């Protein structure tokens, strides 16, 4: 038996619904249809009245979730694509994110964002929005890279008493597989050493973990040992694990699929250089998507995002310093 990243997301939602009567799912086409990506397939039937279709009203979807959370429920909202959460932005960053701080009433909502570029999807079905949400106080931003994390972190997202932006990567939905669902997991807020190494720390998250692991493999055949840190959660960001790794390797490359200005990569580099400057034996580097919208054509798309190959090139620069 094997289970995909997408199936893990479905399974986590099924379990959350089964375990806790306060959980419900609301989003466009999530009901009988099972969602645009089938992440809620069968759940409407299995949990009658708890998996509900929404009108095309993202602002009101988020608002409804917040109201239900005030009443003690634990809504999961599915945005059909992460990109469309821009029209729910205000409710998320101003209403949900401030509620507990302002009123002492927690706002345990989970917003699932199918994120990330896939070939042929173009500028409006490809975005990763972690940096935007992480900028705001009061939001937890999760970016699972593995089937196991997709499952365990989504379960934990529902339990967390704060608004969680759950960034699922569409490129991993069908192809990424695991043998089984995990029975235990690192808690949210802890990064994971996805591969150990001594020469360079690559800090990354979401789909870029896999590109980075592939790059590490390539560099391994050249004799380099690359340590890959999977952040798992970009806010809170586990600076300690990152610094621990940099302390061992002395070198840092940050890789993200988002745009360069103000993304996870600049945040990580700022933290490491401000707090762990002496750990570095070479200038840190970062690699992001290019600073244009995500292109439609596969040729452009492949060049727009970091890949194992461009990560290898960037890594060599840091290693050769």
């Amino acid at each position, binding site marked *: 038996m094997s289970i995909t990243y997408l199936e893990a997301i479905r399974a986590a939602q099924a379990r959350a619904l089964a375990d806790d009567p306060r959980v419900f799912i609301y989003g466009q086409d999530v009901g009988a249809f099972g969602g645009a990506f089938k992440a809620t397939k069968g759940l409407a039937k299995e949990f009658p009245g708890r998996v509900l279709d929404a009108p095309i009203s993202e602002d009101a979807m988020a608002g409804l979730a917040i109201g239900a959370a005030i009443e003690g429920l634990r809504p999961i909202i599915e945005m059909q694509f992460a990109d469309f959460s821009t029209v729910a932005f205000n409710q998320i960053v101003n209403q949900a994110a401030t509620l507990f701080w302002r009123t002492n009433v927690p706002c345990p909502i989970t917003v699932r964002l199918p994120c990330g570029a896939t070939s042929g999807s173009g500028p409006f079905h490809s975005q990763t929005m972690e940096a935007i949400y992480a900028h705001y106080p009061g939001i937890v931003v999760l970016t699972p890279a593995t089937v196991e994390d997709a499952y365990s972190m989504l379960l934990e997202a529902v339990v967390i*008493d704060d608004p969680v932006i759950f960034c699922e990567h569409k490129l991993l939905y069908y192809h990424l597989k695991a043998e089984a669902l995990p029975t235990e997991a690192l808690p949210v807020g802890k990064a994971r050493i996805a591969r150990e190494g001594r020469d360079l720390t690559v800090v990354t998250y979401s789909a870029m973990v896999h590109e980075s692991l592939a790059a590490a493999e390539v560099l391994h055949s050249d004799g380099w040992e690359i340590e890959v840190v999977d952040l798992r959660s970009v806010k809170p960001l586990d600076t300690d694990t990152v610094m621990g790794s940099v302390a061992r390797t002395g070198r840092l490359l940050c890789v993200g699929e988002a745009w360069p200005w103000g993304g996870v990569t600049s945040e990580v580099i700022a933290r490491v250089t401000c707090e762990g400057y002496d750990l570095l034996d070479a200038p840190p580097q970062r690699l992001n998507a290019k600073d244009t919208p995500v292109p439609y054509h596969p040729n452009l798309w492949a060049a727009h995002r970091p890949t194992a190959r461009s990560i290898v090139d960037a890594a060599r620069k840091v290693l050769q310093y």
Partner: protein
Amino acid sequence: MVQSLVEPQSVADISSAPALYVKAYRAMLLARVLDDKFASLWRAGKIHGGVFLGRGQEALSAAIGVALREGDVFAPLIRDLAGRLAFNEPILDGVRTYLGSTLGPMRGRDGNVHRGRPGEGQLAMISHLGAMISVVNGVLFARRMKHITGMVGVATCGDGATSTGSFHEALNQAAVEKLPLVMVVADNQYAYSTPTAQQFACRSLVDRAVGYGIPGYEVDGTDLAACLRVVGDAIVRARAGQGPQLVVAHLLRLCGHGEHDDAYYIDPQLKSSALGVDCLKRAEDFLRQQSWADAGTLAQWRSEAVHQVEDAVATVQREPPPDPFTETWSVLATARLAEGNEVNARS
């Protein structure tokens, strides 16, 4: 087919309900006195930021508050002091929030009209207009999931806020889900300085109701009796499971947008029209006409209100302001995830 006219009234004539009328009137009066106090504190430099009054809108707002029950949910906006008080917001909550006392519900973190106790059905507005309505929907939706019936949610907004996308999405959502939402729009002729002609082009905002497939009612917002009847009926219907209801009240804002604004732009013709009548004054006249209160009683009620307000202000002025050193500066409910302090130390 189009339900944009006021339907025949289903509840008894208000003249048989003096207790309700008096209750509402006293909430209006208390709100007016408290609002005036906020204005004078602001002029004296005792209040930071804006002060927003409900002058001219007390009848409408109070009519909401007295029709609500424990277990209902209310999302007031900036001109709803009367409704808040009638729905049991302690006077101290308003005073503490305006003065930034740490003992208030917002603990100095948020101010003025941005207060509430969401756990007790009093939502705490964010500034973004239209944003509270779908939150009310969410509360109602949750109650339904918990099989709680017989309760309602009321959201209010002005003429200007009806132009927001959030207003539309939320009303449509309530209609689709048949939630017991009562949306009360105070068309007070202006959004800040902008007259309604620049805000909408329909005859009356009640004409929006048919487009959501919900009933809509118009009411003279200067007339407390009418407000009690129309708002009360809408709430009764929503409570009885008849789905969302829209109430549009016509009135005039009898103050500036905020106390910083002298509202020079308000059309004098509107001021002298029926819309410009002061609902508090009108209610007093009505009380006397009906012999429900004489001049002495009215003076007595006013003096009680003044005392309540003065007491509250005196109390709060002795309370401690927030202290940045004891403030947690932490934003998450989930303590173990709070990197706030680290980040803050770090930043």
